[in-house]
C-alpha cells in the first residue's frame, strides 16, 4: 500500500493544554491508501492527536507535514486559514462521531452531499443531483430519500450520509473520530464493511481514532497504541493485536478476549 512518499509525516508532535500535554513526542507516517488506527482508552491522547493532525488544535511542538495532490510538501502548522480551508474543500475529509456535527441537519440529503460540490464551483443542478444520487446509492441510502432531512434518518443512515458528504469531492485523506461509537453492533459491522469497500475502491488514506480494537482489526492496515499522551506501540495491525509487545497493549488485547 506504499506510494513513493508518505502522505503525512509526523515528527515529535505534541499539544499542550495549560500545564498538561494532551499528546507528546508522536512520530508516525501515513501512506496514500493506507488506513491507520489510533487506539487507546479515554484520556490516552488519541483524540488530541487527531485534533492536531486535522488542524483543529494547535501544534505546540514538533512538525506535521502533508504532501498535496500537486506533490507539494506543506508544513501544516504554518498554513494560513485560507490554505487550510482549501485542503478541506478538496483533499481532506472529517467524519465526526456524532453525525449531527458533520451534517446540516435541516438541509436535504441531496443538499448535504451536493454542498462540497457547490462550494467547489459546481453550477449545474442536474449534475449535482445526479452525483449526490450516485453517492447515496454507494453508501446504501435509498435514492428516494434524497430530498429528506437527516433528522428523519436513523443513526447508521446519518453516518453513511456523513461519509458520502465527505467522499463526494474525492479526498485523499479522511480523519475519522470514533465513527461507529453509539451504533448497534450490526449497524457498526455494516458501516465498517462499507468503509473498507470505499477505502479500497477510492484509495483513501484514513486516520481512524477508536477505543475499540475490533474496529481497528476490521479496517486498518497499521495501528498505533496510545497511553498517557504517548505512542507506546505501533506496527501492522495484525501483529500488534496478535503479538503485542508493550505490556499495556497486552493488557488491552487481553481485556477484549475476556469481555
Amino acid at each position, binding site marked *: 500500500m506504499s506510494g513513493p512518499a508518505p502522505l503525512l509525516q509526523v515528527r515529535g508532535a505534541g499539544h499542550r493544554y495549560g*500545564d498538561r500535554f494532551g499528546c507528546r513526542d508522536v512520530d508516525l507516517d501515513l501512506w496514500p491508501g493506507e488506513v491507520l488506527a489510533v487506539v487507546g482508552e479515554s484520556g490516552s491522547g488519541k483524540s488530541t492527536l487527531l485534533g492536531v493532525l486535522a488542524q483543529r488544535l494547535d501544534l505546540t511542538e514538533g512538525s506535521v507535514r502533508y504532501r498535496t495532490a500537486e506533490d507539494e510538501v506543506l508544513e501544516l502548522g504554518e498554513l494560513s486559514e485560507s490554505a487550510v480551508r482549501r485542503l478541506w474543500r478538496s483533499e481532506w475529509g472529517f467524519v465526526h462521531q456524532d453525525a449531527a456535527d458533520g451534517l446540516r441537519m435541516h438541509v436535504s440529503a441531496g443538499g448535504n452531499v451536493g454542498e462540497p460540490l457547490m462550494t467547489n464551483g459546481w453550477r*449545474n*443542478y*442536474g*449534475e449535482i*443531483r*445526479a452525483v449526490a444520487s450516485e453517492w447515496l446509492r454507494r453508501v446504501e441510502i435509498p435514492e428516494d430519500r434524497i430530498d429528506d432531512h437527516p433528522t428523519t434518518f436513523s443513526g447508521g443512515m446519518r453516518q453513511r450520509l456523513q461519509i458520502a458528504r465527505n467522499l463526494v469531492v474525492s479526498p485523499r485523506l479522511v480523519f475519522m473520530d470514533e465513527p461507529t461509537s453509539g451504533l448497534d453492533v450490526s449497524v457498526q459491522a455494516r458501516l465498517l464493511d462499507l468503509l473498507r469497500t470505499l477505502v479500497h475502491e477510492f484509495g483513501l488514506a484514513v486516520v481512524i481514532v477508536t477505543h475499540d480494537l475490533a474496529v481497528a482489526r476490521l479496517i486498518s492496515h497499521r495501528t498505533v497504541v496510545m497511553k498517557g499522551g504517548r505512542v507506546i506501540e505501533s506496527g501492522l495491525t495484525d501483529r500488534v493485536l496478535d503479538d503485542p509487545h508493550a505490556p499495556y497493549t497486552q493488557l488491552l488485547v487481553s481485556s477484549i478476549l475476556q469481555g
Partner: protein
Amino acid sequence: MYVAVKGGERAIANAHALLAKVGRGDPAAPTVEVDQVTGQLGVLVARVMTEGSLYDPHLAARALLQSQGDVLEAVTLIRSYRTTLPRFGCTLPVDTAGLPPQRRISATFKDLPGGQQLGATFDYTHRLFADGGTEGPPPRAEDPAGAALPRVADLLGAAALIEADSHPGQDDVEPGDLTREPTVFPLTRAERLQALARGDEGFVLGLGYSTQRGFGNNHPFAGEVRVGEVEVEFDAPELGFAVPLGRIEVTECQMVNQFTGSADTPAQFTRGYGLAFGRSERKAMSMSLVDRALRAEELGERATAPAQDEEFVISHSDNVQATGFVEHLKLPHYVDFQAELLLVRRLNEEFRSRGADGPGAGQEVPA
C-alpha cells in the same frame, strides 16, 4: 377607470396635527411642565438618560413630554440630539466611592463600615395605592454620612478573595466608544458594558432573570448597590490638572459571583458590574448579572445559555434599533409582497396542472 391615490404629504401633515391634539389631552387641563417631570418622575427620567446615553435631566424630561410618555420615542429623541453634539474631550473615570452615597446596601455582610444605608427606596413599601402620593413621616434630619463609605469589593479585594477590577492586558487602556465606532464582534468587556448600559431595561432584566433561573447561573450575591452623586472631572492635559464640571447621580451594582480557582490557582470570587444614570437599581443589577454571564468564555465556563451569547445579547439589546426594525414592518412592503404573490400563484398553477396530469406526476423539475 382607476385613478392613482395621491396626497401623501397632506396625509402626513394631518397626522402630525392629530398627534399634537391627542397628545395635548384635555385642553382645559394644565400642561405638564418640564420641572414637574424631572422632580416627580425621576426614575423615568433616569431611564431615558441611561438608555439615551446622555446625562441631562431637563432634556430627558422634555423628550418624555414631546413623546407623550413613550419612553423609547424619548430615548430616540435624546440619541438623535446627542449625536449632533461636538466632543471636546473626556472626563477622568468617575470614582463611585468618592462621595458619600445617598443609598448603600450590601447583601453579603450583615453589617459593614458605614452600615446599611437604606436611602430613598421602594423596597420596603407596601404596594398599596396611597392617598396623597408617596408621603411618609418626614425623615429625621440626619447628617449625611461623614466619610465616603468603602466598597465591599475593596474589602474582599484586600484579602485577595475577589478577582481584581481589571486584569493586566485584559482590555485596552483606552476603551472604544460604541457610539462612535462600528460594532464588530467579538467585543471587549468595556464595549459590552457600554452596550448593556444603554440597552433596554426590560431586555437586560429578562436575561438577568434567566441566569437566576438556571440559564447560565453564576451564583450571584449583591456585594453592593450604591446610589449617589459622583464628581465629573474634565481631563485637560494642557492645564496639567482635571477641571471639575459638576456632579451626576448614578446607581452602581457590584455583584459577587461564583468563585473560580483550581489546584494551582487560589480561589477567588468573580464579579459582575452594572452602572446607570440616576436612580436605576433594577437596570444596574440586571446589567451586572448579564455582564458576568457574558464573561463565561473568559472565565473558562461553558457558554450554553442565551445570556452568555455575546452576539445574541448585544445585537438585540439596543431598543431603539429593535423598535425601529420591528415597527418598520408598518412601512409599505407591497412591492416585495407582489413578487411573492407572483411566485406563489405560479407554483399553484403548476401544482394544479400537475394534478391535471394525474397522480404520479413527480414534483421534481427535470434537469
